[in-house]
């Protein structure tokens, strides 16, 4: 890990943490990661890589290898929003939020007022009195996030906060995250969206197979993979090609990799490289479904630095 210049001291740290599920399968293997005060840290990794387990350990009751600053050692100073929010389905959204805020230490009236304010910020004011059991998955996510931010806990641990959110929900979440950060809060979130992580987080950690492969700022992660544009050529279903089998690549192609159903080529100048690149690929005999030219993003950085794809299936 690169501490970086001017880095704040860690608020929570995982030091060589290993954890096995009750069935004995490994979830985390020797994972080390620091969460610095007042940062927004995104955990990026494919399904089953250990992000949720790490969040639970960071927010839990003192697992071996987890070191917490006294400022967030008390359970009332942190909040974990799980990937599957648990709701009292018979109670309204407002009551669900208010009860959790009360459990977190707020008085009854204060909890209700805070719940109302945050439900409004997440666009749930009109549905606040409906039973939470009638909420859609996106509304449940909004409710869970409204409750999490309503706690004003200095350390927020948010598991898949973007799952099921529509653009309005994502915007509300991004604003709430920024406000929490502005108030000196620290947030760790797991996600599968590299664009959101790059835009709204101070650092990103790549989690693979229960380990932290790398953690750094989005800018530095992108620097490490180079700024060359990517040409992503997607093939018709069942016609994926391995670039290594196509013979020598044209000079314009600086590097190549493959994804499910696509090859990704790094080039210097897409407009000049595209014709010969396409011709090279088409020699393999596959039907091209689409061609996209884009700037590199954190998904490319993830692939380059970990040798794995963000969207690959859980092992």
């Amino acid at each position: 890990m690169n501490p970086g210049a001017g880095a704040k001291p860690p608020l929570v740290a995982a030091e060589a943490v290993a954890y096995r599920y009750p069935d004995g399968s490994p979830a985390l293997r020797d994972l080390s990661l620091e969460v610095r005060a007042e940062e927004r840290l995104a955990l990026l990794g494919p399904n089953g890589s250990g992000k949720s387990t790490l969040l639970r350990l960071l927010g839990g009751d003192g697992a071996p290898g987890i070191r917490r600053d006294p400022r967030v050692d008390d359970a009332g100073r942190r909040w974990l929003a799980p990937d599957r929010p648990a709701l009292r389905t018979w109670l309204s959204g407002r009551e669900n939020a208010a009860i959790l805020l009360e459990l977190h230490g707020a008085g009854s009236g204060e909890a209700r007022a805070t719940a109302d304010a945050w439900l409004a910020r997440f666009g749930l004011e009109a549905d606040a009195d409906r039973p939470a059991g009638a909420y859609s998955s996106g509304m449940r996510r909004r409710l869970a996030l409204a409750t999490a931010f309503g706690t004003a806990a200095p350390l927020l641990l948010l598991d898949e906060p973007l799952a099921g959110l529509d653009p309005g929900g994502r915007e509300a979440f991004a604003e709430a995250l920024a406000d929490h950060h502005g108030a000196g809060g620290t947030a760790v979130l797991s996600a599968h969206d590299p664009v959101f992580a790059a835009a709204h987080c101070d650092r990103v950690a790549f989690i693979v197979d229960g380990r932290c492969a790398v953690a750094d700022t989005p800018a530095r992660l992108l620097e490490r993979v180079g700024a060359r544009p990517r040409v992503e050529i997607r093939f018709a279903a069942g016609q994926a090609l391995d670039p290594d089998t196509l013979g020598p690549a044209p000079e314009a192609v600086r590097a190549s990799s493959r994804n499910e159903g696509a090859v990704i080529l790094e080039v210097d100048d897409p407009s000049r490289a595209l014709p010969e690149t396409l011709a090279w690929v088409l020699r393999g005999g596959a039907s091209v479904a689409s061609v996209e030219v884009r700037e590199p993003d954190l998904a490319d950085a993830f692939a380059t630095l970990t040798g794995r794809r963000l969207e690959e299936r859980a092992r």
Partner: protein
Amino acid sequence: MTIWRLAWRTALRRRRLFLWNVAVPLLLLTPVALSAAAAPHRVAVFGVFIVFFGAFGSAIPAVRDARDGWLDEILRAGYSSPRWLLERTLAGTTIDALQLAPAVLVLLWSAGGAGAGAVVLLAVLATLWFANLLGPLVAAAVRSLAEAALASAALSLLLLHFAGFFRTPAPGWTSLVAEWNPYTPLRAALTAGTGGMPMDASVWLRSLLVAAGVTFGAAVFASDWSRRLRWPRTP
């Protein structure tokens, strides 16, 4: 008292279920109360129903709360395990007592045992407290709703048997066990309420000591039990 309020709010919000929980004991127990069955038989039926009502009604929601992650949320929010355990036991006891009250009143009225009303009320409350306390403990030892129901039934029947609901304890160790059984006051109170032998105040002493001891022990070990209940969702 957030858990207490939550339990009441949930119970009152589910009005249909609440009314069913009043109606079913009435429908099942009224014929027994009004029948010509011998007092010990009526006492046994009421005893089994009251204990099962408390034990099932506590263990099954405890498993469900653990499975759904609700318990996890409560404890992660910083609420202490003993508070959670004691508040849910208190709420479960009072809600169960309210729902069972009409059926018990029918028994006392039909048997002309209104004079024993206060003792029966106290015994029902003490029994429900103990049965509600056992719920999370049973739930911590099982892994499914079906197992929770089975374990609650087995444990309850065993305790009822040793409290003398099904046969009078013979002198010796069974008699000793009955003296210390937390369900013995219920048997003695219901017997008094159905025109049987008046209840001896000394019946309370040992049984309540056991109930108090189990309550204290449960509060002390609540964090361990609640950790078991949170399996396997949480590290």
